[in-house]
Each structure stands twice: as C-alpha cells, then as structure tokens.
C-alpha cells in the first residue's frame, strides 16, 4: 500500500470542517462588531451570538440561558469546580468527589483546592476504566459540595455511567459536573434526562476551532464567578465574546448532533476493525478499558516489550499521527496516570498507543494502520532487551 497521511489523534484535536469554517468566516471579516455595542453592527453580532447559544442549548437539550461561552474546556472545568467549591464552602461544605483518572484540567484543579483546605475523594476506577453510581453514593457526605466525574475518558475512551451518577447526585442534592470534552459530538447528551447540573465541552474536539468552550450551568444552580470584568454572558463570564469561534462551535455541535448516530456507527465500525485487527495480528498486546462502554472513535492498546514514544516516531515516519501514554510523551518520567489507575504495570503502560478516529478517516486509513503497525512493533521488539526476556520466560514456561 502506498504511503498515506492518516490523522488518528482526534482526541487531541480535530480539523476545522468546511461548513464550520464557512459559519465562522463572516465574523472574521465584515461581522467584526462587538456584541456589547449599541449600533447595528454590534446588534447583528449580538443576534448571531444568541443564535449560537440556542444551537448549543438545543444540542444538549438545555435552555439557552443555561449556556455560557468560555475560552476552552479547561476554563469550563476550572469555573465549574472552583465556583461550586467556593459556593459550597460558604455553606460549610468543603468536600469534593471525583475520580482518579480525570483529565488534568479537573485533577490539578482538585489538587489546588486540597491545598486550600478542601477534602477530595478520588474514586478509584476499576480495571475496565469504569466507576459505578454506587461508589458515588457511598462517597457522598452531608458536607459534599460537588461531584465532578468525566463523561468519557480522554486516554482510553471509556464512557462512565453518567445518567446513573446524575440520579444519585440529584437525590442527594449535590451539584454534579461532568467534563464531557471527549463525549460531545460522539454520544447523545440530554442534560435534563441525564440529570447533569454542569457540563464542560470544547470546540476543537468536534471540528470547531481551538480557543472556545462552553459551560452548561443548570438554571437555579449558584456557583461563583470565575472571570471578573464586563457584563458579558449575563454578568457571569466576563470578556468580549470570541464570536467567530463561537459561531464555529455552534455549527459544529449542530452538525454533530444531527448526524450523531451515523457518525457513531461509522466510527464504531472503523474502531472495531482496528481493535480486532491489532489483537489478532500482534501477540502480547491488550485493549485498555472496557470494550463495551467505549467512545465510538477511540481505542488504546498496550504492547509488551516496547516504549510508546519510539512507536509514535516510527508511525509518524509512515504518515500516521497517534499518541501514547508513555512517560516520554507525558512530559515526565512517569507513564500516564490513567493507565496506572486501571492497574497497568509501569512497564506495560509505557508501551501504549491511542488511536482516535474522526469524520475524515476511512476504512482505507484503518487498513493502512493495520498494515503499517505490526512490522513496526516487530522491529522495536527485535531490538528490545525487555522483549528478549519475555520470550525467554515464555520458552522456559512452555518447556517446563
């Protein structure tokens, strides 16, 4: 097969789609008005902003007045968690609940609050990368100010039981926030039915640009303001709106939610072919996280005896963009906290590969990955002293 370019890292970011770009362009050119201005150019901008808010609300089954535009998913997470923690603290509630495999936007915010005197319960995920609503119920105390649990994990792609957790939190009258950055656009979300009080999402994970996000904040829920300044976003999130990007996000979420089933079916078929093909062709590898409760486009596999960064470099030389949870790619000497949380030993966590598929991927891309990957793994294993030892052990066992 000829060399191709295959972008298989949509959990990192996605390309801006053509319809999204078209929705943005007018606001990068003649539609430059500030939505807070009184003259017609400002009013037109304001009208566009409010139509975008309606589109996002519709996609999440929320009210437009519950949608706040932010600068990114990380800001939404920071606002929800710090805002709910501060509001809780005033009522003497200084206990927070999350999981041990959240994105760093949640995890590091929680750690910061711990330093300020909050107590945080980190629910341990199981070997499948899941938690149960019962775990949440048991962890809730009279002084719990917030439960923040991700909708789907960014590294291994597992989907958590959000409606069940939502029901538990609603019953206990504890605010429930979910970081849905990976889930929005891939799975159908209804914040009412699923009893979600706050939800973070990010534009650039669903074919909109970087630098725009949303916090859904259920009406009636009071949390502290995060960005102070002007009266934008009904006085709750200051800063001149990034209108072009907001228009892009609104177009992207509308497109994604209209086509959610077809998109999911297409991605699931590619994902399953990849999982089955890799597991069948390559010995001593494993799928990380539940196969059943999984984002349509995401998979994470660990290969024994190899290290992830060298795998990524060799894939890149063949035109394939992917990511890994190895220490070398995490920017520290420790492998990913997510892979350790599901119980992988360090040496196996170092050899992980995440592939995440998007709209522009095809079955040809999948077949290309399945052709390129096995010889790369074999090549790295042939020069690996760790693999040499594993093979010696295997031979000794089969003789013994």
């Amino acid at each position, binding site marked *: 097969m000829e060399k191709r370019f295959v972008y298989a890292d949509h959990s990192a970011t996605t390309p801006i789609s053509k319809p999204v770009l078209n929705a943005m362009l007018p606001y990068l050119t003649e539609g430059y008005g500030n939505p807070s201005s009184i003259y017609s150019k400002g009013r037109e901008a304001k009208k566009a902003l409010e139509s975008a808010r309606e589109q996002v609300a519709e996609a999440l089954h929320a009210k437009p007045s519950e949608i706040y535009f932010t600068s990114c998913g990380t800001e939404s997470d920071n606002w929800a968690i710090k805002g709910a923690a501060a509001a809780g603290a005033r009522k003497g509630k200084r206990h927070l609940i999350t999981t041990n495999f959240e994105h760093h936007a949640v995890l590091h915010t929680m750690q910061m609050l711990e330093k300020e005197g909050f107590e945080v319960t980190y629910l341990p995920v199981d070997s499948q990368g899941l938690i149960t609503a019962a775990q949440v119920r048991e962890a809730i105390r009279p002084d719990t100010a917030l439960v923040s649990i991700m909708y789907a994990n960014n590294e291994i792609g597992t989907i958590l039981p959000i409606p069940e957790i939502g029901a538990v939190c609603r019953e206990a009258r504890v605010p429930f926030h979910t970081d849905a950055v990976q889930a929005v656009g891939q799975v159908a979300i209804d914040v009412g039915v699923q009893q979600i009080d706050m939800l973070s999402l990010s534009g650039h994970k669903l074919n909109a640009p970087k630098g725009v996000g949303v916090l859904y904040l259920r009406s009636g829920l009071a949390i502290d303001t995060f960005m102070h300044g002007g009266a934008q976003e009904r006085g709750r999130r200051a800063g001149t709106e990034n209108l072009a990007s907001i228009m892009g996000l609104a177009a992207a979420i509308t497109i994604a939610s209209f086509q959610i089933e077809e998109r999911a079916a297409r991605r699931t078929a590619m994902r399953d072919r990849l999982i089955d093909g890799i597991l069948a062709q390559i010995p001593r590898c494993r799928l990380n996280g539940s196969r059943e409760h999984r984002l349509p486009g995401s998979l994470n596999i660990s290969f024994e005896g190899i*290290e992830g960064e060298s795998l990524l470099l060799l894939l890149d030389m063949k035109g394939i963009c992917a990511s890994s949870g190895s220490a070398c790619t995490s920017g520290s*000497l420790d*492998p990913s906290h997510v892979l350790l949380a599901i119980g992988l030993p*360090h*040496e196996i966590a170092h050899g992980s590969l995440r592939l995440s598929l998007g709209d522009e991927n095809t079955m040809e891309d999948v077949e290309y990955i399945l052709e390129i990957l096995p010889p790369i793994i074999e090549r790295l294993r042939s*020069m*690996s002293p*760790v693999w*040499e030892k594993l093979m010696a052990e295997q031979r000794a066992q089969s003789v013994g």
Partner: protein
Amino acid sequence: MLYSEKVLDHFSNPRNVGELSDANGVGEVGNAVCGDIMKMYLKIENGMIQDVKFKTFGCGAAIATSSMATELIKGKSLEDALKLSNQAVITALDGLPPAKIHCSVLAEQAVRAALADYYRRQGIDPEPIVGKLEDDPHHCESCSSCANH
C-alpha cells in the same frame, strides 16, 4: 519534542543493533519501570573493541544514544572506550532535548557496565578501572515510579 536530524537518523537507522554470540563483555542498565533499558555487547581482543552491538527498550533518544555510543567506541582501544562520556554522545548527536539528557547518561553507563563485565571475566576487579557502577544507574530522582517499587 524537537530532535536533531542526527538523533532521528540514529533512531530510524540505528547502527550496530543486535546481539553478539561471542561477546566477552555484556552490560545492562536501566529499568523497565522507568521506561528504558540498554544492553551492550562487546567483543574485545588485544585491548581493542573489535565489535559492539546493542539492544534498547526506550524512547527515540534512548535508541539514538545507544546507537551513537556504539559508533563512538567501535574499533577503539579500551582506554578510549573508558573515556566515553555522555557529553560526547550528546555532541555527536548535535544535542538532545533537556528531558532526554538522562538517555545519554544511560548510554555511557551501558558501555561502562559492559567493560566492567569484561574485566570481571578476565579476573580483574573492574572498580579501580571503570569506577563504581551503581546498582541502578538510571537517573531516577524525579521519577516517583522508582521510589514506589
């Protein structure tokens, strides 16, 4: 992570990969928990490194520094091989990103471990010649995984 052309070249076309069945000095350093292990095979005759091979489990820099270290000592005298420093490996590779300096230290230590094994096989105490080799020469001070294991 920006690698130099030389690092990428030695990573994608590593020199002297493999094992030596008639090696008379073999050393292994590193730790799979931390994500890199280097194993160095030396064939030494008449005080010269006649042949050298390596096997490495690790990142791009780990493979590239192993490869460069073998190039720098192949055909050299034992004295020259003993002088190999991690800085020489870095220089020969046109530099390494700061987070990857430990890979060059590991490559230097792998050569030393193999030389120590050679002296030991000759019935010579390697310590006065090669210096003291740590049990785990991997630079792990910032790596909590080692502290936990």
